[in-house]
């Protein structure tokens, strides 16, 4: 072995590029690298300075509490989101100047759209929805934790390892340039020897395993851990959507893993799965990738639908209209989502008959989606709607998502698809469904459940202004792309020669700045809320007159979630108790609670797989072997030791629950007109028009 760092050399360090060859392009690249490095250094320094390492290790990194793991997923999502947003703004700046050129080199531009897509889908959207599912599923079904708590932590470790690899690529070497789909042979060894596509492959494969394990874990949790009496059709809608997403994760991630590993074999070992020569077949990649890629769309959007469902019924103070239809619609979407993947490459040479079949399947999937929109509208109809931040997001979602959905139906027609294929129209479409569809739901969901997780509400005015900024920013940035797309502006092209595009691209640039402001508004919301946390405190746990079991706990909930596992008789279990006038029942008898012990498995898997991915990217074989062997030995060693449960004595459960019940007894219930006021301490006066 000639080099212990494989093919990694000093020339791959991007930090100093700008000093060697000063230009806007290298300045952007080096600045990004410096931000990544300094950001990491700042976090380490802050933790050291505030002496928080022990706290971080004991309370968070080694915890198997699903609530904490969920919050860590959200934090990971936010860090990566910051990067994705800034990349978006740089890209829009480039496009606004891209008439016959642009501020970035074509290669850097290609890297940007590839990282932006990869980061936003795999390391923003996925952690966000996984975070929500982690936090909510056990609470909503009345369980204490996931079916496999340690595996849950390992999933987080694997996802974070993928994210870490993408972040490392900012500093060392380059990322791939073939878009988030990374189609070979363009990303094959013959055309791009690396390390860019290798970063992509290993980040995706490693985090893909994490997502797959999450899916299995959530599915088993929902199937097997529901509270006694909670039949399938008693589950909160969010759990239904989470179940469908989990099933999709279990079955749709293998194609991505297979595609990624085959691409890895092509690149590392000279196999011929997707190469141009010796019998390789690129179409296999396209099919495998989209067999994952299309269900992935629904993996992301279904939990968002779940959040919108909880949101409408909570803030309209009504039972969800058409629960059963919604469940059927969700299941239908989950099934049909496996039958439409080919619409991502209508133009790649299959027969018109096949295209027609997939086009029809694609159009059909709009039907259950339409059912959902009607369900939410009917729920709001004649409800007693409170105009809180989540409802602002919902309003934006209704209008914008419908536009995005319609453009999807247009694209489902192969004949039209041929015309707008590979133009900005597509970019407009998927941003239109992902931002108002998924991201708005995440933000609305944060406003709803943040008080549950941290014990205080988020600032309403800041929240509403931020929501309005997201809606305006989205509209300005992405709606003009429909027009330039129809005018013939190709997607992913680093420059254009039609001056008519320029005004539109300037509007989208301004829109991108509005989005950046919206992101700042989001950060501001958190900062202002944390500062005013005493005024915003809702320790009693039910600030929104909630309907499902998670609201029947204090905020934040104790590690064990429920002092005794609740008995469920119907849908909207907590709402039913409140309407019947006997919520917060004190259990007759407390028992010791057994909880899974903390473990460092997640951290071990994170370190080992980050090392493995990095080593495979840079051909550092000793590190690859060391990482793989060490994690195997650790896991086997772990299985040979006894890991007794942590026992919470009945006395402590009793004391903690009693303190909460007594606080509720002393509190005055707050009616819905005052829920955003200081007097809202989390004890809601029930106002449900049709609670049951």
């Amino acid at each position: 072995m000639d080099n212990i760092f494989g093919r990694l050399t000093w020339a791959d360090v991007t930090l100093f590029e700008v000093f060697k060859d000063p230009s806007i392009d290298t300045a952007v690249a080096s600045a990004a690298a410096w931000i990544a490095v300094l950001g990491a250094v700042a976090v380490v320094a802050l933790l050291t300075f505030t002496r928080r390492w022990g706290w971080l290790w004991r309370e968070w990194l080694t915890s198997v509490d699903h609530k904490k793991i969920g919050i860590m997923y959200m934090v990971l999502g936010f860090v990566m989101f910051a990067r994705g947003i800034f990349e978006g703004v740089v890209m829009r700046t480039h496009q606004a100047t891209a008439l016959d050129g642009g501020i970035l080199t074509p290669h850097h531009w290609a890297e940007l759209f590839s990282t932006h897509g990869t980061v936003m889908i795999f390391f923003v959207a996925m952690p966000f929805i996984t975070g929500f599912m982690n936090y909510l599923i056990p609470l909503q079904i009345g369980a204490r934790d996931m079916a496999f708590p340690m595996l849950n932590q390992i999933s987080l470790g694997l996802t974070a390892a993928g994210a870490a690899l993408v972040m490392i690529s900012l500093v060392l070497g380059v990322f791939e340039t073939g878009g988030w789909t990374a189609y070979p042979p363009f990303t094959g060894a013959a055309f791009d020897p690396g390390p860019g596509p290798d970063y992509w492959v290993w980040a995706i494969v490693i985090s893909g395993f994490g997502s797959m394990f999450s899916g299995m874990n959530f599915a088993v949790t929902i199937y097997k851990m529901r509270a006694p009496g909670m039949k399938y059709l008693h589950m909160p809608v969010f759990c239904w959507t989470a179940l469908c997403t989990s099933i999709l994760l279990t079955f749709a991630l293998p194609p991505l893993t297979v595609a990624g590993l085959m691409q890895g074999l092509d690149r590392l070992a000279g196999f011929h799965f997707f190469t141009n020569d010796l019998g390789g077949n690129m179409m296999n990649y396209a099919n495998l990738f989209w067999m994952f890629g299309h269900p992935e769309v629904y993996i992301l959007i279904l939990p968002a639908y779940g959040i919108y469902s909880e949101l409408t019924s909570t803030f309209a103070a009504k039972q969800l209209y058409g629960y059963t239809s919604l469940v059927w619609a969700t299941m239908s979407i989950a099934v049909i989502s496996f039958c439409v993947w080919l619409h991502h490459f209508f133009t790649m040479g299959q027969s018109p008959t096949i295209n027609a079949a997939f086009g029809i399947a694609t159009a059909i999937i709009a039907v259950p989606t339409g059912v959902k929109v009607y369900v939410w509208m009917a729920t709001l109809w004649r409800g007693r709607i409170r105009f809180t931040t989540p409802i602002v997001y919902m309003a934006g979602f209704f209008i914008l998502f419908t536009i995005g959905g319609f453009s999807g139906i247009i694209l489902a027609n192969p004949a039209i698809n041929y015309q707008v294929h590979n133009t900005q129209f597509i970019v407009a479409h998927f941003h239109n469904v992902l931002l108002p569809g998924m991201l708005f739901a995440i933000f609305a969901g944060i406003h709803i459940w943040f008080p549950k997780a941290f014990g205080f509400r988020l600032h309403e005015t800041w929240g509403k202004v931020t929501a309005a900024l997201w809606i305006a920013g989205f509209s300005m940035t992405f709606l003009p792309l429909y027009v330039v797309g129809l005018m013939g502006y190709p997607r992913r092209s680093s420059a254009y020669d039609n001056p008519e595009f320029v005004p539109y691209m300037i509007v989208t640039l301004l829109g991108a700045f509005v989005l950046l402001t919206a992101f700042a508004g989001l950060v501001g919301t958190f900062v202002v809320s944390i500062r005013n946390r005493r005024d915003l405190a809702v320790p009693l746990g039910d600030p929104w007159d909630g309907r499902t079991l998670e609201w029947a706990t204090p905020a934040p909930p104790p590690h064990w979630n429920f002092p005794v596992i609740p008995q469920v008789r119907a849908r909207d279990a907590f709402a039913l108790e409140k309407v019947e006038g006997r919520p917060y029942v004190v259990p007759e008898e407390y028992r010791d609670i057994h909880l899974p012990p903390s473990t460092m498995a997640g951290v071990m898997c994170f370190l080992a797989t980050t090392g493995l991915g990095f080593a495979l990217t840079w051909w550092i074989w000793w590190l690859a072997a060391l990482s793989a062997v060490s994690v195997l030995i650790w896991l086997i060693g772990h299985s040979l030791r006894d890991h007794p449960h942590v026992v919470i004595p009945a006395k402590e459960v009793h004391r903690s629950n009693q303190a909460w019940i007594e606080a509720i007894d002393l509190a005055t219930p707050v009616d819905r007109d005052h829920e955003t006021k200081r007097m809202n301490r989390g004890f809601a006066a029930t106002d449900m028009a049709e609670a049951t």
Partner: protein
Amino acid sequence: MSNAKPMNAHPGMNLGYGEGAHDAEVKVFGFWVFLMSDLVTFGLVFAIFGTMVEATAGGPGPREVTNLHSVAIQTALLLGSSFAFSWASLSMKYHEGRWRTLFYLSFAATSALGFLIIEFLDFRHWIEIGAVPQRSGYLSALWALVGLHGLHVAAGLLWVGAMTAQILIFGLTDDIKSRVTRLGLYWHFLDIVWVGIFSMVFLAGIA
């Protein structure tokens, strides 16, 4: 669990009616879900292989790589290993002591090790005749499919080793019984996949 009356969902493990049964119910079900996902993985690799059967690019094809003699021995060894494992499962159910279970487990492991050795000899032969994965799309798919199965068997062997150590350390507790049951599912699953490889790759290849 939704039904309050005691249940014994896994009579094959001979657990008590307490927490252990519920625990095993959740974990064994979870393992079935994993196997479904793994089956999808194998299914996809099979499908890719199917599309690449013709893609020999003038290199060695199915006739050159198929040695039915060796494949028959491998099949016998792997199926024999599965058979031995089912005896291990039965003795775990019917006998108190751990030794009988370990005895059959060692048979299962030895037989699977034999399978891997013969498979390795096949691989070596393929390399000798130039049937390396770098030669053609067909060979890439062949190596990936057979190799993925072989890797699963090797991982399974590692698991049997860890399981043996666990049985020696903890004895056949409810928890360990549930683990052995999951390992058994995995073991038999690999047999089913091998039957697919045997018939679709080797038999169909020379048919």
